């Protein structure tokens, strides 16, 4: 039986949903508001809202003081690059796990996921030294590799889930039709998994864009992306909240826009395997 939706129940759920959404979004909203305040207004106690003095100066200063386009470009290269490289490795891996699983495939998948449970800081020193020794410290290629490795388990897991949804008979039909493995993946599997691959791509671009620990640890200047750009505004001399907020807003804005326009695809992709 369908649950009855009275107007009162609807109003209550709507109110609850808005409240939760506001609580989650409030820090971001406050950051955006702060970015338009003067430094004095930003640190005022009690916090100022309507009576605050508004300005665009923070943005002007942040833009002048640093090379935003370079950080932005580094973020694009690192997040898109690591995702594409990850997909390139994960598609064949997920294919084999979904369609020709071995006795230990489930264990392997769990093991891959378990690597995400390890605190990243535990391997910071070895990775730092390794990157220095390989000469890829503070290079875009280094960060592409590092972030790809960080997110590879998630990419493989997501693709595995999507591939499991594709009936194996269709791939067998392709094999009967004379397709070799490459053609089977290229002409049949990939086009059928496009929604899943697209949402994996989007989610991982977002994850890589927002990653701060490795991007700050493994860069100094040349390859530093927007996370390092934000960090550079917390100076030892003290925090300038308004400028820090302006820098942060500039850093998250591109990914916020991308997320906004692709939210349908993201939600669809993430619930893809949920309902049979």
């Amino acid at each position: 039986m369908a649950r009855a939706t009275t107007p009162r129940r609807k109003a209550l759920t709507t109110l609850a949903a808005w409240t939760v959404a506001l609580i989650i979004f409030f820090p971001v909203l406050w950051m955006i508001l702060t970015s338009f305040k003067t430094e004095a207004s930003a640190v005022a106690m009690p916090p100022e809202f309507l009576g605050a003095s508004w300005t665009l100066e923070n943005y002007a200063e942040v833009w002048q003081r640093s090379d935003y386009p370079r950080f932005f470009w580094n973020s694009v290269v690192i997040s898109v690059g690591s995702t594409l490289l990850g997909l390139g490795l994960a598609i064949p891996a997920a294919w084999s796990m979904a369609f020709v699983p071995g006795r230990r495939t489930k264990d392997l998948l769990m093991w891959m996921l378990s690597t995400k449970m390890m605190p990243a800081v535990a391997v910071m020193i070895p990775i730092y030294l390794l990157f220095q020794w390989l000469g890829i410290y503070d290079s875009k290629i280094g960060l592409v590799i590092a972030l790809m490795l960080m997110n590879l388990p998630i990419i493989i897991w997501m693709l595995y889930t999507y591939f499991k949804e594709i009936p194996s008979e269709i791939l067998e039909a392709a094999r009967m039709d004379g397709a070799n493995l490459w053609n089977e993946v290229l002409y049949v599997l990939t086009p059928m998994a496009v929604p899943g691959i697209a949402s994996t791509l989007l989610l991982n671009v977002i994850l890589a864009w927002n990653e701060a620990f490795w991007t700050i640890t493994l860069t100094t200047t040349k390859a530093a992306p927007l996370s390092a750009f934000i960090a550079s505004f917390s100076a030892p001399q003290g925090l300038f909240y308004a400028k820090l907020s302006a820098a942060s807003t500039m850093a998250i804005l591109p990914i916020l826009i991308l997320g906004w326009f692709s939210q349908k695809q993201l939600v669809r992709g993430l619930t893809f395997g949920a309902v049979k």
Partner: protein
Amino acid sequence: MGKIVLKSVRKAFGEVDVIPGLDLTIEDGEFVVFVGPSGCGKSTLLRLIAGLEDLTSGTMHIDAREVTSAPPAQRGLAMVFQSYALYPHMSVRKNIAFPLKMAGASPEEQEKKVTAAAKVLNLTNYLDRRPGQLSGGQRQRVAIGRAIVREPSAFLFDEPLSNLDAALRVTMRQEITELHQSLKTTMIYVTHDQVEAMTMADKIVVLNAGRIEQVGSPMELYHKPANTFVAGFIGSPKMNLIGGALAAAEGADQIGIRPEHLGIVTEGGWEGTVGLSEHLGSDTFLKVTTGQAGVLTVRAPGEVMLRHGDKVRLAPMPGKLHRFGKDGVAL
């Protein structure tokens, strides 16, 4: 050409022997039906022939060429799946052309063969549609189209009609039979439906627990079942099997009589009471409980108007009795 020879073919999944060891020869141009209850290994056997499963041991030859470990693409076979297995992101045209594209045919040749196949299968008006926009019967025709453009040495059908409704099943059954008559290519057809087996096959292979119970023409299987399993499986309603004193009197462990070979008589025979009567118009099926022979199914003419509780006398028609020994093998 499409002669397929299986020698000592065995397939095991882990510890379980699905096909313990089997020899079978399928002649060029034959329509062979694998029939048996679910789980008897008929689909596995078809997948072994297709190359979608590897043999555990044994050998397989197609037209005297050893294909035991050849991948599906190199066997020159085409397969029609139960679920149609069409490519949902491609149009009907591209679905049918896919095997040609994989074989490296030119676009002109692809178009020519697709057009020809579509004409044969009444799909000309649907070539630009996606499989999702077609009915079950049309989808199955696309699947068949995809198989015929390859001009394979044999067609493999894995329960292709089981997703269709009853009326469409009859039509498609006839279309596949006609296709076989015009192409004269070897066809191997898997089904659990003995009506399909009887109506379509040149040769039926009855399987049970991965073993071949009997190989023969539909009429051979009907008139001379090799054992009680085949006797019970071929023919609808099932053959009546009777044990005890009546069988012993015939010098057998069990005797079998088909429902259509039991006559309603006025004198002699076995006396019984009608339990259930089903009137189909053309036939009347009766379940009769007799004292000597237990419960018997009778196929009587449609005009017979017996009802629940009526008394009848049944007698087997002369020469229609089947005798089986202790292990169920025909005597």
